[in-house]
């Protein structure tokens, strides 16, 4: 399609080429639709690929390797000089991002999806105005999908200056490892970035306003995580409010208010503000199609991902919920199928994954949540330290906890902290989607020696019969 003055038309117009947008585009094309993707970013992939999931995971991986080298000496591996050239690390990361973006472009070509680098704005429920470097044009559509994602939330007293006060976007591209870093916000983005720089030797401070972090995690797992943070030289201040800042030579001086109302200063080289993300809806022309956002700025959708305007769908971060790429993927597929007349609707569990060290992953209900909902539960817990594979990897921190309904033994949730639990969580997700009982997983053979054995053992622990751990008979089972 050519961008010009002429009004062009497409069956489905997609605003945004991130996880929501590009997945919807591919699925729609597979289902036979003529699709046009309008993307403010020059390449597809959105936040996730350009400045989120992928770049952060690349840096996390590099930092983890770097930090693990001294620990290898116990295995007899010694290095004379440990050095990291962070600008090279960044180049390597950029290369990966580029490869993946081009991969999506290639898929667009193969599926004959039109990709326009431009900003889109609704003129009506049938027409989008396209602003690109080549000017203005119009695009008629039958259906539209809003997948404009989110951006880092700015704190009025700490506006981003992109030099000293950064968002996740900038910090993932810095060329030099800072000596010290303060992070406002103990959410998953803050924690992951803390992990990166903690491993690279930066002195890291996390400031959290709330009295606790990781609210969806059960206490036992949270405590393990907090212990690990300490070991990695990452300090965490909860119930702590950042009040103001002051530039002091090359440093930034932060004024904090502690729980007891006392005030304290904290000096560091860089400040990362990671206090959540706001949906991107400005300039979208929502007023022209009479679509309103909710109080927090998200678009409201029904289980088919439809907005109040039936031919306009919204998916991904802009539609709220868990702001994760795989949630966007899932919604993209639902919207695409529904546009094509299929009876698709949201009814899934979203697993949450946090790439700290050790990793955290959970799906379904925590024990606390399950009890609050009135379930009578049984739980099981298994430590990685008791696992052969974890020992040979020298990654023994962490546990897996299984939560099941007592009467039916149906698995309600599984929570994990430990090595590579980001990969282990899928078994738990499948179990919950299938409505599995504890026995279903207990009777599933887990290969040895692998980390996945911890899933099986935590299930057996809920049944009172783990193999690699002594467990006194549970009275709850015999009653």
């Amino acid at each position: 399609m050519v961008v010009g003055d002429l009004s062009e038309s497409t069956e489905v117009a997609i605003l945004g080429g991130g996880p929501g947008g590009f997945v919807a585009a591919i699925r729609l094309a597979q289902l036979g639709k003529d699709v046009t993707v309008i993307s403010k970013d020059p390449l597809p992939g959105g936040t996730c690929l350009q400045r989120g999931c992928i770049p952060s995971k690349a840096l996390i991986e590099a930092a983890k390797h770097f930090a693990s080298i001294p620990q290898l000496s116990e295995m007899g591996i010694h290095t004379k000089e440990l050095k990291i050239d962070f600008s090279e690390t960044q180049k390597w990361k950029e290369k990966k991002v580029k490869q993946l973006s081009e991969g999506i472009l290639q898929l667009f070509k193969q599926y004959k999806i039109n990709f326009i680098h431009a900003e889109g704005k609704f003129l009506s429920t049938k027409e989008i105005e396209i602003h690109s470097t080549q000017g203005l044009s119009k695009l008629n559509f039958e259906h539209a999908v809003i997948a404009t994602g989110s951006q880092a939330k700015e704190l009025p007293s700490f506006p981003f200056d992109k030099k000293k006060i950064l968002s996740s976007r900038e910090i993932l591209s810095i060329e030099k490892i800072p000596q010290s870093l303060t992070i406002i916000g103990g959410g998953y983005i803050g924690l992951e970035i803390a992990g990166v720089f903690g491993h690279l030797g930066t002195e890291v401070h996390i400031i959290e306003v709330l009295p606790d972090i990781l609210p969806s995690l059960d206490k036992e797992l949270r405590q393990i995580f907090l212990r690990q943070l300490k070991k990695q030289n990452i300090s965490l201040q909860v119930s702590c409010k950042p009040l103001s800042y002051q530039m002091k030579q090359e440093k930034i001086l932060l004024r904090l208010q502690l729980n007891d109302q006392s005030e304290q200063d904290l000096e560091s080289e860089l400040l990362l503000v990671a206090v959540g993300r706001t949906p991107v809806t400005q300039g979208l022309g929502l007023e022209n199609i009479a679509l309103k956002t909710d109080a927090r700025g998200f678009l409201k959708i029904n289980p088919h991902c439809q907005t109040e305007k039936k031919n306009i769908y919204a998916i991904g971060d802009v539609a709220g919920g868990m702001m994760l790429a795989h949630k966007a993927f899932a919604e993209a597929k639902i919207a695409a199928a529904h546009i094509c007349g299929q009876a698709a609707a949201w009814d899934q569990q979203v697993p949450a994954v946090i790439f700290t060290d050790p990793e955290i992953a959970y799906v379904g209900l925590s024990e606390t949540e399950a009890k609050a909902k009135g379930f009578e539960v049984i739980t099981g817990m298994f430590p990685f330290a008791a696992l052969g594979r974890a020992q040979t990897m020298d990654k023994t921190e962490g546990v897996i906890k299984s939560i099941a309904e007592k009467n039916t033994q149906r698995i309600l949730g599984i929570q994990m902290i430990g090595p590579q639990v980001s990969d282990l969580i899928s078994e738990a997700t499948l179990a919950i989607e299938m409505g599995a009982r504890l026995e279903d997983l207990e009777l599933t053979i887990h290969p040895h020696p692998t980390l996945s054995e911890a899933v099986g053992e935590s299930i057996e622990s809920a049944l009172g019969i783990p193999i690699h751990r002594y467990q006194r008979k549970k009275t709850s089972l015999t009653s």
Partner: protein
Amino acid sequence: MEKEFIFPDLGEGITEGELIKWLVSTGDYVNEDQEIAEIETDKALVSIPSAFSGKIKKLCYEENQTVKVGTALLIYETDETSQTEDTKSDSLKETENTQSNREKDPIINKKKPQTEQSIQNTTHLLPLATPATRKLARELGVDLHSIKGSGKDGRIIDDDIQKAANKTEISSEELTEGLGSKTKPSPSEKASPYEAIPLKGIRRKIAESMQASHQEMVMVTHMDEARVDKLLEIRKEKAELAKSRGIKLTLLPFILKACSIALQDHPYLNASLQEESIFLKKYYHFGFAVDTDAGLMVPVIRDVNKKSIFKLAKELTELSARARERKIDLEELQNHTFSITNIGSLGGIFFTPIIHHPDSAILGIGRTQQKPIVDQNKKIVPAYMLPLALTFDHRIADGATAARFVNQVISYLEDPDLLLLEEGEN
């Protein structure tokens, strides 16, 4: 305190029933075991006894509504009312709390089905079904929260969805909204030019069973007549005797008997075809069609070959009476090997009965009437003729078998003494 009385699982895969009549009303004090409602299930009309004593606070259904197993049928009230209010408002607060927590997470919020409110039982928060089954439910417009699965702990399987989909009347609009409308006109509209009767209860059972026979079988009907003057005489002769024993003697027990003997010589007509095998049955359980207010019911008389004519006559009367009163047990409708349907009392000569699934044959009986026939002496004489129409499954048996079988039955009916001689198992 409040107490819910949950419509109990009646077994036999029954998942719902139609509330025919309340036997109690709000405010009544009910004793344990007192009958509270009449409910018609697929199989029979059952009276539901109360599981406990108490004053009735609320009836949860109206008459003629469909009641699902596992849902509250009515709510009782026990004495400590004042305390109730407190605990209630507290638990309400709690739900409000979780509600607003949910709002923080619009995804969880939005996937909450509208019906969840009615299902406060926490164990049913997430429907117990695999993703593929859930998808099937969406496709067929079945609300997972509205059905009880047949699996352990109420697990919903594809079959349950299919069944529910067949039963769903007009509830799928919501899910199919925007998918090209399948709009059925609303039957509740006033002055509607038609009346929509939901297919359920016995009617639905009949529909399913007829459909199954019609789809599976290759049915052919063979027709003939028996001259029953002699038989009528015997009946007349023995009518008094029968009456003294409290038995109303009709032709039917004789026909049953005749068939049970002839079937022993024609086992393929007392058979069924299942999973690539023909099962020849060595027992003779006959279903016989009874016209009830609710529709056709087919109670079964067991071991016809082993019972006397009087005994058969007696059972016929009893079973049909109970069928009409809807007091019949499920087992009394099962395990037939052959069936007889008699429309003679209403008129009609020949017709083409549909086999009672999964049997291989059914005998239809028309009205016995006097007809001019040509006798052995080539004279036209009046004779009582009984029309017989045997439908058989041509997959299992052939026309010759059917003809031979009917001939044999005719021979017994025309010469009832033979019945005596041949009586018993061979």
